[in-house]
C-alpha cells in the first residue's frame, strides 16, 4: 500500500489517511481526479467503483465527493476525496471509466444539485419526480418546514425531551446527581 | 316439445357439471394447502370468489371484443360440455351429443380459446398476448400426443362416436381403453397435464413472470364468467377423458369418482413439480408423449 | 502426287501452328496464308493424274480422247478461285491489322482481348 501511495505521490500531490488495514482515504485536488481514477483503475487494479457520494460542507461553502474504489486482488477499499466549489457545484463525469457511475451522478445531481455535464440521463428525476425546491440534501434546505408545508400533519403528534419525560414519568423523586469534574471543563 | 325437454336436461347437466367442477377446484386448493402444511381455504371458496366478483359494482371494458371474450370462453366451455355424452345411457346427461362426434368436441375446445385470446388481445396489455402466445404454442404441442391417442382410439374402436366408444368399453374393467390400449392412454394422460395447465406446464398464467397472463385486464363479471367456465371446462375435459379411456360412467357417482381420480393425477403431478420454461414444455410434449402416441397408433393399426 | 498432298498437309499444319504460336498479328496473317497455300496445293494435287497433261485443249491433246489425256481441270479451276478469295481475305486481314495498329499502336494479339466472357 505504501508503495502504491509513493507511486501516486511521484505523480501528483495527495494527502493520505489510513482508517483500517483495508480502508484508506486519499485527498486530492479536483484537477487531478480524472488522472488519479484512471490511473488507479488501469494500472493499480482498483477496478470496482463501489459508490460515489457527496457531503455538503455548508459552512465552508464546499462539497466533498468521495469515490470509493475497491481492489479485488488486494481486497483494499480506497476512498478518493475531492473538494469542489459549492456555488459552481460542477464535476467531471466519470461514466466513461465506470459506466454505472451515471446512476450515482444522477442521484447526486438530483439530491445535491451537483452537475455532471455529459453524464447520460443526468437530468432525469430519480426519486423526486417533479421537484421544484432547492435540492433536498443541501443543508440549507429545511426539510421539516417543507414537510409541514406540503404534507398534512396528523394532529396529536407531540414530542418530549426524553430526559424530562423520564424524570416526570419514572423518577418522581429525582435527585440531581453531583456534577462530575471532567478534564474538559477546564 | 322434445327439444324443450332436451334443453331442460342440458341445463340440469350444466349446473351439475359446473358445481362439480368448481368443487373440484376447491378440493384441489385444499390438497395443495395440505401438501404445504396449511389448512387452506374452504372447499366452497371458489363459489364465494365467483359471487364476490359478480358482486362488483363497477367494471371496465376495452371494447366489444373484450366484452365478448369471456362470453366466447364460456360458450366454448358450455359447447364442449354439451357435445359430450356425460353418463352412458342417461337421458339427462346425454346432452347434445347427437350434433357431432369426437372431432367436434376436440375442435370446439378451440372456440373458447380463440374467443378468449381475441378478447384478451383487445385489452391492450402486453402480458395478455404473451400469455396467449405461450398458451397457443403449448397447445400446439400437447395437442399432438392427444390427437395421436385419439386416432389410436378411432382405429381401435373404428369410430369417432363417443357414445359408441363408451359402449365398447362396458362390461368389465378389462374392457377399458386403459387396459386395451395403454400406450394411447399414457400419451393422452401426459397431454392432460398440459391441458390442465397445472404446475409443470403452468406457463400461461405464470404468476411470477407474466402475472396471470391473458386475463390480466379481466375484471368483475368478466372474471366471474371465466372462473365459472374454469369449473365447467375442467369437468368437461375430465368427462371426455373418462369416456375415452376409463370406460365412461353409468351413473353420477361413478362419474364423480372416476373424474376425481383422473383429476388427482394431474393435481399430484402439479403439486410435485416446478414449472417448465415455455420451450422446455413444448419440447417435452413433442418428444416422449408423441413417440408413445405414434407407437400406440402403429401398435393398434398394424399388430 | 502423294508428295504434293503431304506437302500440302504439312503446310496446313505449319500454318496452323504458326497461327497458334505467334503473337504478332502479321505473323498470324502469314500463318493463315500458309494454311491457304497448303489447301491450294492439296486441291491441285487431288486433281493431278500421273502422265497426263494440262487441261488445255490445244494441238497436243486429242479432242476426242481429251478426257483420258488431261488431268481433271476442275480442281485447277477451283484453285484459281480459291487463290483469289484467299488473296482477298488476306488483304482484308491486313487492312484490319493496319487499322488495329493505328488505333492501338500494338501488333500483339494479346493486347486485343478486352472483349471476353
Amino acid at each position, binding site marked *: 500500500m505504501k508503495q502504491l501511495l509513493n507511486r501516486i505521490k511521484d505523480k501528483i500531490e495527495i494527502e493520505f489517511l489510513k482508517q483500517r488495514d483495508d480502508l484508506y482515504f486519499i485527498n486530492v485536488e479536483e484537477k487531478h481526479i480524472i488522472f488519479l481514477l484512471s490511473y488507479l483503475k488501469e494500472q493499480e487494479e482498483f477496478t470496482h467503483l463501489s459508490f460515489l457520494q457527496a457531503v455538503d460542507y455548508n459552512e465552508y461553502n464546499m462539497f466533498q465527493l468521495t469515490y470509493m474504489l475497491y481492489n479485488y486482488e488486494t481486497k483494499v477499499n480506497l476512498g478518493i476525496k475531492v473538494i469542489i466549489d459549492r456555488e459552481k457545484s460542477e464535476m467531471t463525469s466519470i461514466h466513461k471509466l465506470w459506466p454505472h457511475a451515471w446512476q450515482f451522478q444522477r442521484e447526486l445531481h438530483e439530491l445535491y444539485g451537483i452537475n455532471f455535464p455529459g453524464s447520460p440521463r443526468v437530468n432525469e428525476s430519480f426519486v423526486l419526480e417533479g421537484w421544484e425546491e432547492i435540492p433536498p440534501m443541501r443543508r440549507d434546505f429545511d426539510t421539516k418546514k417543507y414537510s409541514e408545508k406540503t404534507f398534512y400533519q396528523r394532529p396529536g403528534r407531540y414530542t418530549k425531551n426524553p430526559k424530562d419525560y423520564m424524570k416526570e414519568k419514572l423518577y418522581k423523586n429525582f435527585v440531581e446527581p453531583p456534577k462530575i469534574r471532567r478534564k474538559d471543563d477546564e | 316439445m322434445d327439444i324443450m325437454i332436451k334443453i331442460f336436461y342440458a341445463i340440469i347437466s350444466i349446473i351439475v357439471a359446473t358445481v362439480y367442477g368448481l368443487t373440484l377446484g376447491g378440493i384441489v386448493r385444499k390438497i395443495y394447502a395440505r401438501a404445504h402444511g396449511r389448512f387452506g381455504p374452504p372447499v366452497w371458496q371458489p363459489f364465494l370468489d365467483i359471487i364476490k366478483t359478480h358482486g362488483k359494482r*363497477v367494471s371496465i*371494458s376495452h371494447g366489444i371484443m373484450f366484452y*365478448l371474450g369471456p*362470453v366466447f370462453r*364460456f*360458450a366454448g366451455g358450455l*359447447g364442449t360440455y354439451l357435445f359430450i355424452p356425460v353418463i352412458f345411457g342417461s337421458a339427462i346427461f346425454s346432452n*347434445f351429443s*347427437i*350434433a*357431432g*362426434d369426437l*372431432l*367436434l368436441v376436440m375442435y370446439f375446445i*378451440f*372456440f373458447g380459446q*380463440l374467443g378468449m385470446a*381475441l378478447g384478451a*388481445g*383487445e385489452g*391492450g*396489455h*402486453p402480458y395478455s*398476448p404473451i400469455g396467449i*402466445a405461450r398458451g397457443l*404454442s403449448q*397447445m400446439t404441442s400437447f*395437442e*399432438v400426443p392427444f*390427437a*395421436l391417442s385419439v*386416432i389410436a382410439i378411432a*382405429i381401435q374402436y*373404428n*369410430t*369417432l362416436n363417443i357414445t359408441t366408444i363408451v359402449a365398447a368399453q362396458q362390461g368389465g374393467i378389462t374392457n377399458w381403453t386403459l387396459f386395451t390400449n395403454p400406450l394411447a392412454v399414457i400419451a393422452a394422460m401426459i397431454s392432460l397435464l398440459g391441458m390442465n395447465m397445472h404446475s409443470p406446464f403452468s406457463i400461461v398464467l405464470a404468476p411470477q413472470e407474466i402475472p396471470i397472463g391473458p386475463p390480466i385486464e379481466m375484471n368483475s*363479471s368478466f372474471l366471474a364468467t371465466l372462473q365459472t367456465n374454469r369449473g365447467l371446462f375442467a369437468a368437461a375435459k375430465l368427462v371426455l377423458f373418462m369416456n375415452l379411456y376409463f370406460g365412461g360412467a353409468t351413473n353420477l357417482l361413478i362419474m364423480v369418482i372416476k373424474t376425481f381420480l383422473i383429476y388427482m393425477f394431474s393435481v399430484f403431478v402439479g403439486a410435485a413439480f416446478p414449472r417448465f*420454461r415455455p*420451450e422446455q414444455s*413444448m419440447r417435452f410434449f413433442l418428444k416422449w408423449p408423441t413417440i408413445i402416441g*405414434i407407437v400406440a397408433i402403429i401398435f393398434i*393399426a398394424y399388430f | 502426287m502423294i508428295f504434293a498432298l503431304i506437302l500440302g498437309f504439312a503446310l496446313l499444319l505449319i500454318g*496452323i501452328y504458326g497461327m497458334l504460336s505467334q503473337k504478332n*498479328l502479321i505473323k498470324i496473317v502469314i500463318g*493463315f496464308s500458309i494454311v491457304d497455300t497448303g*489447301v491450294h496445293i492439296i486441291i491441285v494435287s*487431288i486433281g493431278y493424274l500421273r502422265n497426263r497433261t494440262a487441261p488445255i485443249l490445244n494441238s497436243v491433246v486429242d479432242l476426242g480422247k481429251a478426257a483420258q489425256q488431261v488431268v481433271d481441270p476442275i480442281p485447277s479451276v*477451283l484453285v484459281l478461285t*480459291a487463290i483469289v478469295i484467299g488473296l482477298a*481475305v488476306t488483304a482484308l*486481314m491486313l487492312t*484490319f491489322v493496319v*487499322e*488495329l495498329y493505328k488505333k*492501338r499502336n500494338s501488333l500483339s*494479339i*494479346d493486347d486485343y*482481348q478486352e*472483349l*471476353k466472357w
Partner: protein
Amino acid sequence: MVNPIYIIILSLLAGFLLSIFDKGGRKLSLTVFYSVLTFNVFVIADWFYRFAILGVSTLTINTAGFSAPLSINLQLGMLESFVLLFANLAGLLSAIYLIKKFKESKISSLILYLILIMGVNGLVMTRDLFNMFVFLEILSISTFALTILTKNKKSLSAGFKYMIAGGVASTFFLLGVIFVYYFSGNLNLEFISSNDFTNYGLIGVFLLAIGIFIELKPFPANGWALDVYESVNSGIVAIIAVVNSAAIIFVLYKILPLLPTVYLSVFTGMGIVTYIFSNLVGIRQSNPKRLLGYSSVAQMGLLAASLFYTTKLGVSQNISFLIAGGIFINHFIAKALLFWIAGIVKKNNIKDWSVLRNNIPLLILFGISLLALSGLPPFPGFWAKWEMVKVFVGSKYYIGLSAILVGSLLEAFYLFRWFGYTTKNKLNKETMEQVQFSQIFPIIVFVLILFFTSFWIMTNVYSLNYFNYLPLVAIFGMFLISFLRSKVKAIISIAAVVLYGYFLFPLGMSIQLLFGIIFIIGSGIVIISTINRKNTGKGFYGFLLMMIFGMGNLIIAESFLAFFINWEFMTIAAYLLILRGKRAKIPAIVFITFSLAGAYFILAGFGYMPNIANNGAIINTIGTIKIPLMAMILMIIGFLVKSASFGAHIWIPGAYAEAEDDVTPFFSSMFSKTGIFGIILLAISFIKQTPDFDLFYWLGWLGAISAIVGAFLATFQEDVKKLMAYSSMSQLGYIIVSISLLSHLGWISGLYLTLNHFMFKAMIFIAIAGVIYRTGTRQMYKMGGLIKKMPLSFITVLIGIIAISGVPPLSGFGSKWLLYNSLIEKGWFLQAGVFFFASAVSFLYLYRMIHSIFLGQMKYEHQNIKESPIWYLIPQVIFIIGIMAISMYPNLIIQPLNTIVGNYFNSSIVIDGYNVTSSLGYWNGNMVMYVTMGVFAVPLILLLLINGRTQTVKQFNIVYAAERPESPQTTHFAHNMFSHYYKALGGLTKPRIQSFWNYVSEGTNSLAGLFRQIYSGNGQTYILHIILYIVAIYFIMGV
C-alpha cells in the same frame, strides 16, 4: 415472275455501280440501294406466294446455258423462298434501321451490305458445293468488312478474330469440298449421294459438315462470334446474327442428305450442348448484345440440333418443318427485334435498361420480343418446342429432352431477369434520345409478322378452338381501351368475365362446375376490389383478364395442347401482374423461373401422354386413357410447383407479398387452385385405370409435409402477406393430401377445402389489402388496435380465421371433419396426426395476424384512418355471406359434392337431413350452429344483466405495473411474437429448401462463370478452340 437470278445479278451490278451513283449524291445512291433491296423482297415474295399458295413446282435455274452438273445451277423452291423472304426482308428492314448511319458512312458500306445480301441469296439458292464456298466467302468477307462500319477498337479486334476464325472454318469447308469432289467426282448436290462415300471418303463429308458447323458457332468454338455480337453496330449484328445464320443453317440443311446417321446424332448432341451451355454462360452476362449473342448461338444450336435430329429420325416433313421453321422464325424475328432495340437503347449493361421505361411502346415491343424468344405461346418457338418434346419423347431421347428443357429454362431466366431489370430498376433522370421512325418501323413490321405467323400456326396448323384466343383477345382489347379510367375498365372486366362465364359454362354437376365457380365467379367478385384503383392502371386489366381467361380455359380445354397453352398464358399473365408490384423484381423472376420449370415438367409429361379422343374437355375424357407413370410424375411435379408444395414453395412468399395488394387474392384463392385442378385431372385417370405404382401415397405425404412446414413458416413471419402466403401453402397441403387419398370422402373433403379455401383466403386477402391500403405498411407490428377503426375488416378477418382454423361452427370445421374422417378411413393415421399438428400450429399464425393488426395498441399515426374503401368491403361481404351460408346449411355444398364425386367413387357417406354420417362418425352442421348460437347467447345475456355499470375505456387504461404506458409501440406485443416457440421448434423452420435452391442457383452461376472462362478474348485461343473442337468431333465420330 422475275427470274430470281436477277436478284443476284442486280445486287452485284448495283453494288459495283453504287460508287458511281454516289458521285451524283448520296440521295441517289441510297435510292438505288433501297430500291434494289425492295426489289429483292418483292421478287422473293412473289415467288413465295407462287410456291406456297399457287403450288408452283420448284424452279431450277441453270447458268451459262448448260444444265447441271456441267454448270452451276440454282434452285428456288418453297423452302428457299421462305428463308430468302425472311432474309431479304430482314436485310431491307435492317437497312432502313441503319438509314442514318448509311447517310453518313462511306459508300463502301452500302456496297458491302448489298454484297452481303447478295451472298445470302446466292448461298441459299445455289446447289453447287464450290459455288457455295464462293458465296460463303463473299458473305464472310462482306461481313468482316462491314464490322468496320462501327469503327472502334472493339469492333476492329472482334472483326479480326472473326476473320481468322471464319477463315479457318472456310478452309476446312474448302478442303471438304475438294474431298467430296475427289470421292464423288461431282460438285453438284443433285448428283452426289451419300453412297458415294466409303470409309475414307467420309473425311470429305466430315470436313464439309464441320466447316459449316463451325460457322454456326457451336459451343465452345464460338468466342469470336460473341465478340462480334458485342461490339458491332446493332443493325449489322442483327444481320449477322439473323440473316447470315439463316443462310448458313440452310446450307447445312442442303448438305444434310450427305451425312451418315452417326454424324447426325453427334451433331444433334453438339447442337444441344451448344444450346444448354450457351444459355448457361448467358446467365452471367450483363452486356445486352453479348447476352443476345449467347442466346443467338444457343438458338442456332437448337435449330441445328432439331434439323439433324428430325432428319435422323425421318419424322414427317410437316412436323420437322414446324419444329425447324418455328425455331427459325422465332429466333429470326425475335433476335432481330432485340438487336434493333438494343441499338436504340444504347446501354451496355442490362441493369441500366430502365431508361426504356421512358418509352412505353418500345417497352411493350421489347417485352413481346422477350416472350417470343423465351418460347412462350402463342409465338412460333412455343409450337416448335411442343412438337420437339413430342419427337424427343417419342424417340426416347431423354438426355436431349432434359437438356433442351434446362436450356430453355436458363434462357427464359436471363431474358426475364433482363425484363425485370428494365421494368423495375431505378429510373435515373436520364431520358432516351428521340427514337426515329426509321428505327421503330422495322421493329413494328417484324412484330406484326411475328403475330401473323403465330396466329397462322394457331389457326392453320392446330386449328385451336376459338376460346383459346380469348386471353390474347383480352389483353389486346384492354390495350385498345387503356386510356379509360380504371373504374370503367374494372366494370368492363367484370362484364367480360360474367359474359365469359355465361357463354362457356353451361356445365352440369361436375368438377368443372366447381372450378368454374372458383375461377370465373370468384374472379368476378374479386375484381370488384380493384375498382378502388385510382390511376388508369395501364395494362393491369389486360393481364388480369388474360390470367382469368387462361384459368377458365383450363377447365374446358379439349386437348393437352390447349390445356398447356392456357397454362402458359396464365403463367405469363401472372408474372406480369406480379411484376407490377413495387419491389417485385426478384420475386417475379423467382416466380417465373419456378413456374416455367414446372411448365416444362408438364410439357415433358404431355410428351409422354398417349393421344386422347378429341371430344370434349379433357377433364371428362382423361379417364379413358392410362397415363404412363413417368408422365404422371413429371406432371405432378409441374402442378405441385404451381400449388406451392413443399420443395417448390419458395416462390410464394415473395410473389404473394410483392404483388399488388388487390392482386394477391387472385393468386392465393384462384391461381394456386390450377395446380390442384391439374392434380385432380391426373387422379381421374389414375383411378379409372388400374395403377401399377401408388404415386398418390407419396403425394399425400408431400401434402402433409407442406401443411406442417407452411404452418411453421407462417408462424414466424412479420409480413402479413408473407404470413398468409405460407398459410396458403399449408392449406394447399391439406387439399393435396385429401385429393391424393383417392377415396370418396377424401375427394369430398378436398373439393370442400378447395371451395372453402377459395372463399376465406380471398376474403382475408382483400381485407388485408384494405388494411395495407390505409396503413401503408405490411409489417404487422407496425399496425395494431385497428379494430376500433376498421371493424368490418376485423369481422371479415375474424370469420376468415375461424373458417381457416376449423373451429366449429363455421365451414372450416366441416372440412376438418371430412379430412380426418377420410384419412382415418383410408388408414393414413400418421398423416392425420401431422394434420392435427398443422391445424394446431395454424392457430399460432392466425392469432398473430389478427392480434398484431386489429388488437392491442393502436399507433398514433393510425388514429385518423378510416375503414377500408367500399370496393374492398363489397367482395368481403359477399364472401362472408357465402361462408355463413355453407356453415349454416352444409348440405348446400356437401350434397352437390357428393353427386360430383359420385361420378368417380362409390358414395361412402349418408346424408340425412343435415346429418352427415361417415363410416366413422357423424356431424350435423346445422345443429352445431344452433347449439353454438345458444351457448353463446346465454352467457352474453347473463353478462349483460349482471354486469351493471360497465365503463368503456381507452387503450392506455391498462394495468401497467402501476405505471402508465410510454408509447403504443413499446406496449404493443407483436414483433417476434413467438420467440419462445422459435426457441423450441424454430429449428424446423431453418430455410433448408431455400438454401438448397440458393445452392442450385449459386452453383449454376458459378458453373456459368467457370464455363465462360474459356472465352478468354484471345483470338489464338479461339482458333485453338476450333481446331480442338474439330479434332474432338472427329474422334467422337470415329471417322
